[in-house]
């Protein structure tokens, strides 16, 4: 992973015991990272606001296990999109002393970090852990549309149809890798897709 300079690294969830509020956004298998990280910090659950979406790529739904640990507030969301809407609303009114955590697939982490940045949170103070598939979130540089859960390259853009080569260039602000037309010169040739980021 670290071969790519712009590719973010996810050091793992580490509970900051001094935080007055733990704002945790978990997707899919990211739930397991939350359960593990907070296993040694039983007091922290009573100061936790937990947002969870089972996510497309996860083999299991962990919501019951999470809820069983009795976080102070628990919000179950059907999709990443609805989770992000809720998270942004919470960030709007959050106060200092709140620590932000993100666990799950890379696209999810990226969106959470970008939301934190937009609220003035330094990315270094956001605790992140990657779990689940290596699927990428890709932005088509031609139509600017986003495509989630991309595991192959080239991938046809879901919006404009252009076959995109997924570059190893990651934008933290957009929380996405860059997709560039692979056959701008030779529109008739589309190389076969390879599964790269499973």
């Amino acid at each position, binding site marked *: 992973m670290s071969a790519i300079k712009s590719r973010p690294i996810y050091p793992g969830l580490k509970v900051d015991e001094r935080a007055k*509020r733990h704002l945790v956004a978990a997707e899919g298998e990211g739930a397991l990272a939350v359960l593990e990280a907070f296993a040694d910090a039983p007091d922290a659950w009573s100061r936790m606001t937990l947002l969870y979406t089972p996510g497309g790529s996860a083999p299991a739904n962990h919501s019951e296990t999470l809820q069983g640990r009795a976080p102070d507030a628990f919000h179950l969301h059907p999709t990443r999109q609805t989770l992000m809407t809720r998270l942004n609303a919470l960030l709007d009114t*959050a*106060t200092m*002393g*709140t*620590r932000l955590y993100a666990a799950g697939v890379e696209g999810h982490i990226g969106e959470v970090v970008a939301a934190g940045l937009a609220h*003035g949170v330094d990315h270094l*103070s956001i605790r992140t852990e990657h779990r689940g598939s290596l699927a990428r979130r890709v932005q088509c540089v031609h139509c600017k549309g986003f495509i989630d859960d991309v595991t192959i390259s080239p991938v046809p853009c879901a919006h404009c149809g252009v076959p995109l080569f997924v570059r190893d260039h990651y934008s933290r602000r957009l929380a996405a890798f860059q997709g560039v037309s692979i056959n701008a010169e030779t529109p008739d040739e589309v190389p076969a897709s390879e599964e790269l980021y499973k």
Partner: protein
Amino acid sequence: MSGGVEIPVRVVDVEQATQTVKRFRLAALSGEPLPSFSAGAHVVVTMDDNGRRMRNPYSLIDRADDGSTYRIGVLRTPNSRGGSKFMHERVNAGDQLVVTMPVNLFPIVRTGRKHLLVAGGIGITPIYAMANELRRRSASYEIHYAMRNEASGAFIDELRAAHGDRLKLYRDDMQEFVSVSQILPNQPLGTHLYVCGPEGMIDAILKGGRDAGWADENLHSERFLAPAGGEPFSVVLQRAGITAEVRSDQSLLEAIEEAGVDAPFLCRGGACGQCETAVVSCDGKLVHNDHFLTEEEHASGKKIMTCVSRLKGRELVLDL
């Protein structure tokens, strides 16, 4: 020279702001506009006292709109090795000094949603510049300014005029103290705190911030340690093949410079790390005064920050 490009300046105006603070207005000797700087920046001023060179960092208060002048504020410190005393007693309008290019080790975090500026005493100088920049940018901010008494507050009138009720004063003589339990709670996520002032105040505010669950990334401080004097000792610059004496009223860095060796520096206050130098050997005990090296590095005895630290003993051999 190793603080970067230097600019010869002329003092155009000296103002006694309080009993112990003077403000100096400086213009480039060349008549050209001075480089613009971002709020929180400082310059290192070189003073020449009959051949004895002293260099002190001073935060920049402001730059004239047309760029023709800078202002710096200088507190007269009783235990000064001579720098602030020289500025207060010997520097008058018309005199020449040399300043480095501005360096900013205390910048405003542009992504912050709100900014708390906390100043104690002369620590108001960088804070003053930061408050003006935040006002220009219509950002959200508060200023908390602590001082001994109103007469010793160097910028109160100007600050009041510019910032109105965003300015809160704390006067020791009226039992008013900046308290973290009052200023830290209920600040919106994305708030950054900046503190500049006496050691004890900085430590208390930073600790308060961490205890309140603030992330380290949101807590910023600037301390300019005036290099403490001490007993004299000799320093051997191994690569240059020079042995020099460090006088009791001189910093190690000043002695190295006096010996003609161009050693690196930026802050001259033990904070930036630029002057880190490898210790080859020493006969005596290293006295570390910086805030840059870790405790383990201090204990290892392998490195020294020449701007503020020195030796208690006979001889120090440096890889310079």
